[in-house]
């Protein structure tokens, strides 16, 4: 009798220990995400205290959800690029290249039309933008892989080159998209659900889910991790290193083109000289703040996704609590350096 009671208590303590163990394991495994979430909550609290009128009103959240996706949609695939131990600095220009393709096709097929008549042409224009974005990204990849120029240098070069191409083709002239107003095409890309929720946020969530699946549940993602971790091992074991690398550049290319279309549709105008400007800073900040290592091999989509919101909050917050817009650059620069430095130090300590 006593022994069975003993056994029961023993089993119970074992269960409790198991629970504690798995809790500790969960905390360890997700330390990074938990850390990011805490930073986020802390900042949020800070801004609520600092600017309660702004941060307790629903409008600010609608504003977040409309503006965060424009760089978030690029930060998600950029995470894969950086896990693969590469970098892309040219996606801001790729946004404009994609949009140039969009405008050229749109002018040809749908210009001067109104309402539902232009939807078909606009869809073809969107497809053109995505294909061009993919190809331009792929060209980055080909230069990096086949010629062997480090991606940092390659994409500094192509960033200027493609912006130049855009300016030459458009002669620097903007293009109005005002006649897409009220069309289903516009509603699906940058409409408001229930008059409040910006639909581009839904696109960002969908792209986040797609990237998560690609990275964690698909061979391609497995290879991205391996290539970034140890290129030579990956090659020795038969991973197609070159193809994996080229494709991550293609991926960020498509995403940039899509983000370019969304950002232009939002303001009903394509600005060839400035579309994509400023996104480099936000996007890189989000990826590094999200815990992706510059040294390749580690990083998560969830981390980047959460960090996008931190970046968006900081940008809105600095202005609302009374600092000038000049502070945002300073803060983002600091975020990039500090998060990369923390990673480097951690890496040294863990050996």
């Amino acid at each position, binding site marked *: 009798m006593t022994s069975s009671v003993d056994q029961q208590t023993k089993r119970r303590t074992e269960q409790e220990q198991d629970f504690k163990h798995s809790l500790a394991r969960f905390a360890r495994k997700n330390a990074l995400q938990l850390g990011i979430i805490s930073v986020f909550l802390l900042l949020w609290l800070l801004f609520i205290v600092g600017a309660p009128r702004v941060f307790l009103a629903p409008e600010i959240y609608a504003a977040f959800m409309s503006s965060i996706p424009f760089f978030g949609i690029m930060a998600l695939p950029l995470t894969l690029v950086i896990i693969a131990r590469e970098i892309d600095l040219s996606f801001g220009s790729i946004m404009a290249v994609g949009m140039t393709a969009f405008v050229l096709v749109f002018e040809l097929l749908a210009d001067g039309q109104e309402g539902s008549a232009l939807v078909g042409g606009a869809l073809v224009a969107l497809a053109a933008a995505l294909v061009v974005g993919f190809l331009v990204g792929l060209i980055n990849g080909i230069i990096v892989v086949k010629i062997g120029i480090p991606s940092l240098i390659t994409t500094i070069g192509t960033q200027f080159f493609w912006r130049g191409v855009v300016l030459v083709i458009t002669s620097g002239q903007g293009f109005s998209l005002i006649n897409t107003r009220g069309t289903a095409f516009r509603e699906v890309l940058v409409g408001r659900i229930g008059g409040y929720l910006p639909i581009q946020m839904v696109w960002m969530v969908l792209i986040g889910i797609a990237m998560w699946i690609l990275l964690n549940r698909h*061979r391609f993602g497995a290879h991205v991790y391996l290539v970034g971790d140890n290129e030579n091992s990956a090659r020795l074991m038969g991973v197609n290193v070159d193809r994996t690398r080229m494709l991550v550049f293609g991926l960020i290319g498509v995403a940039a083109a899509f983000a370019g279309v969304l950002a232009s549709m939002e303001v009903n105008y394509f600005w060839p000289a400035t579309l994509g400007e400023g996104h480099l800073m936000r996007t890189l900040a989000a990826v590094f703040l999200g815990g992706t290592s510059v040294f390749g091999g580690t990083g998560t989509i969830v981390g980047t996704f959460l960090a996008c919101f931190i970046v968006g909050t900081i940008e809105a917050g600095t202005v609302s609590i009374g600092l000038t817009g000049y502070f945002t650059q300073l803060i983002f620069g600091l975020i990039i350096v500090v998060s990369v430095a923390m990673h480097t130090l951690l890496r040294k300590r863990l050996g």
Partner: protein
Amino acid sequence: MNYRLELRKISKSFGEVQSLRDIDFQVGQNEVVGLLGDNGAGKSTLIKIVTGYHQPDRGEILFNGKRVEHLTVTKARQLGVETVYQERALADQQTLWRNIFMGRELSHRFGFLDLKTMKSETNRLMLESMGFTSAAVNPESIIKTFSGGEKQGVAIVRALHFRADLIILDEPTMGLSLQETRKLLEFVRDIKGAGKSAIFIDHNVFHVHSVADRVVVLDRGTVAGEFQTKDITLDDLMEKMYRVAQTGSLE
């Protein structure tokens, strides 16, 4: 019967360095071939040509008598070659299961990973073959913190898992304890017992002599000679290795 593997007149240079010159080399069906040679003799280069990692400058590669053009690592693995590389070929920041299935991830249709099978298979291998008894190690463990011998165990078990029938081991005993070395040699004998073939590289002549059917000696990129192990005593083999190192010739 055809050789399991045959190399004909294989040459390979890296820039100025000619690592291999007109190599003829064979591995028979169900034969364990020991590959001996000084540091830099070209042993690793030779096996990396077989695994499809290096492309030879000249020469032919035949698997089971069939000539294979443009061999890649993937193609070689499909042809039944698995390898424990000298450099181990692991990814330090990744989990155990990702390392085991590196480059040959099990997947469903459209390339979606079969995580369940990969993890349970890793668990089985850990318990049955790797001798990991520590509760702290599981398929989700990052291998960075494993000891040198444990990492090697991962590379060795990986080569086992895919049921290859030509297994290449490049200095597999390096850094292993006496106990683990004995297990490894036993494992090479099992390869033979199971009717498969192997290439076994080791600087320890005693190890090579005790598991190989035939020994091939490389010297500065050429085949200096070969012996059936049953025709040569350990002492004679060691004697010859010294002579090759000094004079470049077996006689």
